[in-house]
């Protein structure tokens, strides 16, 4: 037959070519999921992320702080219900990812932490069910958070409130802040803001402690049996250090002050004289005991790759005085300072801070409590802690921290100034006892403010709110 040979060859060639296409399709369909779908530039990942039903975040009282609502296009909208909690919670955006606690608890909120069995996985795959995340309950109290945020309105700085003996963080305010509901629109402005609103100052802010270090120094003096009542001449006058004039927390006329009185008013001169009596080794040991170099990580709430984590400070004769007066290389976070205050009201041992109370899987009504927090960390002795409590009560009763006092609440505190470059920082650390072993501790730092009284006032307000919240939850 004419053309017979050619046609049969053509037929075979065509079939072989179609087979080749089939093999190529099989290759990409079978190996592609591993090789291609995990690529950063796969837009299907964004789509899948947008459909994830991210879990809600609740406060300790069960009040919803953040919820996700489904939209018409099958994506979810994250809504932050209390603007005052933004600095503590961070943000979540389809475009810019997650920050703060949203990032720290991302695995649970996305539902990526739950074990999933084969039939569940198959059903989800077949029916295209979106991934559903767990709800989480934080130790934060929305009332305390709002009260503190309102008290700090217009300031720049940080405040943290901790419940004793649990170590639960009741409030964590960092200013300036941002509106997570407008994140996508404000992103460029926020990232260019020199105030760095995304920076959680409570956890990440390393501040010059200044005279706020007087509390560990007094603890060292007590341990060394150093007398606190020896008077130092002109102790209320500013102390000159490296071109800086270190001042008392409140303005005083020229006076001689004992170490006890100098502590009450946050005056540095007496402490500079006292520091001559102890050596670098003692100072180093004191800082080490109070773990000032420790940067507490609350349930992984701060990335360990944070460039701000610094190496331990080596104290020697050259930098000794600067560090003793809190103007050296030794810097502290507000969280480390609240741990110092907490240790004084908890028999010298500080509870480890926690933020997460529990998680609730999507198909469940009951909360799964997180494991009990880490053991307490010994900072000082019971006796030293008890004597420091009295010193702090005295500072609130008749010293520079009077603004922290509130009627019918047992409050102790210490207020002081620190200097960082051209700016002055106002510190307050304090506690309130609430009956039994229950107490609250607070640390406040105000940037660019020489008003230690204001810091004390904010501290007092925070402790009062914490007391109210803890009594309510206790009852």
């Amino acid at each position, binding site marked *: *037959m*004419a*053309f*017979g*040979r*050619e*046609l*049969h060859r*053509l*037929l075979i060639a*065509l*079939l072989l*070519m*179609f087979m*080749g*296409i*089939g093999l*190529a*399709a*099989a290759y*990409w*369909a*079978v*190996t*592609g*999921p591993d*090789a*291609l*779908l995990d*690529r950063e*530039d*796969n*837009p*299907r990942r964004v*789509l899948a992320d947008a459909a994830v039903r991210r879990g809600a975040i609740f406060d300790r009282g069960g009040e919803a702080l953040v919820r996700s609502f489904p939209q018409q296009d099958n994506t979810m909208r994250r809504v932050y219900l209390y603007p005052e909690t933004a600095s503590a919670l961070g943000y979540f955006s389809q475009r810019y990812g997650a920050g703060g606690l949203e990032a720290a608890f991302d695995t649970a909120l996305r539902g990526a932490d739950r074990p999933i069995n084969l039939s569940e996985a198959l059903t989800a795959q*077949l029916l*295209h069910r979106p991934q559903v995340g767990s709800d989480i309950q934080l130790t934060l109290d929305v009332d305390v958070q709002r009260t503190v945020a309102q008290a700090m309105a217009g300031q720049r700085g940080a405040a943290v409130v901790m419940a004793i003996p649990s170590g639960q963080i009741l409030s964590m305010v960092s200013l300036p802040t941002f509106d997570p509901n407008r994140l996508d629109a404000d992103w460029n402005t926020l990232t260019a803001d020199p105030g760095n609103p995304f920076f959680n100052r409570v956890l990440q802010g390393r501040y010059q402690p200044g005279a706020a270090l007087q509390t560990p120094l007094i603890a060292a003096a007590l341990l060394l049996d150093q007398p606190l009542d020896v008077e130092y001449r002109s102790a209320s006058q500013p102390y000159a250090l490296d071109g800086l004039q270190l001042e008392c927390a409140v303005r005083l006329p020229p006076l001689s002050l004992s170490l006890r009185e100098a502590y009450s008013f946050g005056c540095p001169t007496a402490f500079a004289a006292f520091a001559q009596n102890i050596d670098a080794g003692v100072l180093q040991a004191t800082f080490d005991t109070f773990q000032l170099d420790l940067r507490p990580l609350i349930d992984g709430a701060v990335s360990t790759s944070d460039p701000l984590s610094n190496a331990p400070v080596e104290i020697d004769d050259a930098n000794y005085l600067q560090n003793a007066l809190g103007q050296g290389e030794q810097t502290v976070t507000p969280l480390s300072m609240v741990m110092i205050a907490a240790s004084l009201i908890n028999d010298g041992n500080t509870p480890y801070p926690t933020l997460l109370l529990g998680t609730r899987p999507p198909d469940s009504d009951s909360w799964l409590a997180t494991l009990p927090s880490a053991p307490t960390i010994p900072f000082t002795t019971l006796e030293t802690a008890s004597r420091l409590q009295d010193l702090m009560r005295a500072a609130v009763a008749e010293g520079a921290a009077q603004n922290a006092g509130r009627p019918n609440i047992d409050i102790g505190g210490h207020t002081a100034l620190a200097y960082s470059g051209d700016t002055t920082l106002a510190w307050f650390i304090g506690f309130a006892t609430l009956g039994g072993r229950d107490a609250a501790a607070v640390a406040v730092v105000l940037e660019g403010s020489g008003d230690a009284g204001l810091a004390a006032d904010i501290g007092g307000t925070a402790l009062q709110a914490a007391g109210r919240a803890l009594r309510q939850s206790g009852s």
Partner: protein
Amino acid sequence: MLNTLISELRRAPVLDDPGRILQAHSVERRFLVIAALFLLVNTLSLWILRGDVADFWHGLAWGACAVFGHLVLNWRLPDRDPLLFPLAMFMAGWGIIAISRLQPPFADRQSIWLIVALCGMLAISWTRALLRLMRAFRYLLLFGGLAVLAVTIQVGINPSDPEGVFGAPALWIALGSLYIQPSEGLKIILVVFLASYLAEQYPTLRAEGLHTGRGRITVSPRILGPIALMWGLCVVVLVWQRDLGTAALFFIVFLVLLYTATGYTFIVYSGVLMLGAVGVIAYQLFAVVRLRIDIWWNPWLEAEGRAYQIVQSLMAFAAGGVFGQGIGQGAPGFIPVVHSDFMYAALAEEWGLIGALAVLVCLAVFSTRGIRIAIGQRGKPYQTLLAVGLSTLIAAQSLLIMGGVLKLIPLTGVTLPFFSYGGSSLVVTFLITGLLLRLSAREV
């Protein structure tokens, strides 16, 4: 001529074996029912997913076309190939569902085009004298086709880029709001011309094509002539229209026909070499060719830039996996112009490897049935070559675009026959189906 046509229309064909023929009709009916069930399930899925029934009329139109086509073919071409029509309807229906899922407004137009295409196919199968007429007027057809091509080169536009801002190939002629792609029609004309030319010339070509005496090989001008003509046509299409796909398609179909007619294997080899040489030259001269070859060679370097389309296409295959995401559940919309050139990737994402292989098998069966029809044309060189040319058109176009979206070969902007959006393309594939049906009928 008109009298002949009218008498053709009035004459019913004579059946030689009613039992066998009725069985073949039943086979065709069963395939159509299977196709209808598949399309119904998918239409319902899409309906549930979207919650509206606006697209339901596509299914009704398809059903009406299937029933009407089957009945008319039973009457006019009772002894035809029983697979071609159900396959064409199945693929076109699947294409409309996919278009309706990808670009809902386009599905309305595609359904109307299906009706037009079906009418064209039935008209061709109706007219017994058509093959003879086409053969008789082959030069008129060819020069008419070339004239339209010339007009397209002058006034052609691209509907997606009417101002020519992006330098997209301008392959369409606008008739009011209607866009027609003349190169699609030219494909059939070219096959008809070559089939009739080679059917007359092949005995001479086979006899004197190669003078191998005294170790000398010369090629007859009878071979060189059409080669030069086709070469020129391909270069025109390539240079003036930057239509890499159609140029490659013309050349491949021509090579296959020339090989079938002459039986010389060296034609295939030298043709492939020439294609390669043209590729190399075009790579140097034309930015569009350079782009296509660069992103084919390594798309990963520019996965978010120029190679975005092909990378997304491969991701669609990966996302589809073996079983697919399900209709309306994948994200093939990330592939630019997915409803046209990249339809195969969209089908693979939502119907998985199983769907992709089903598409492949349909197209392979369709084109190999065409070759079978050619084999069946004993002693009729024109009909044989015509069937070979038409099936090669479908096969080569399918292989070019499927190979392109799978990164086996550089991308050529041709449509996936039957499936892709495009009126001209759908009408032409149905006309080809009509011609193959006509050729498959016993009494031709």
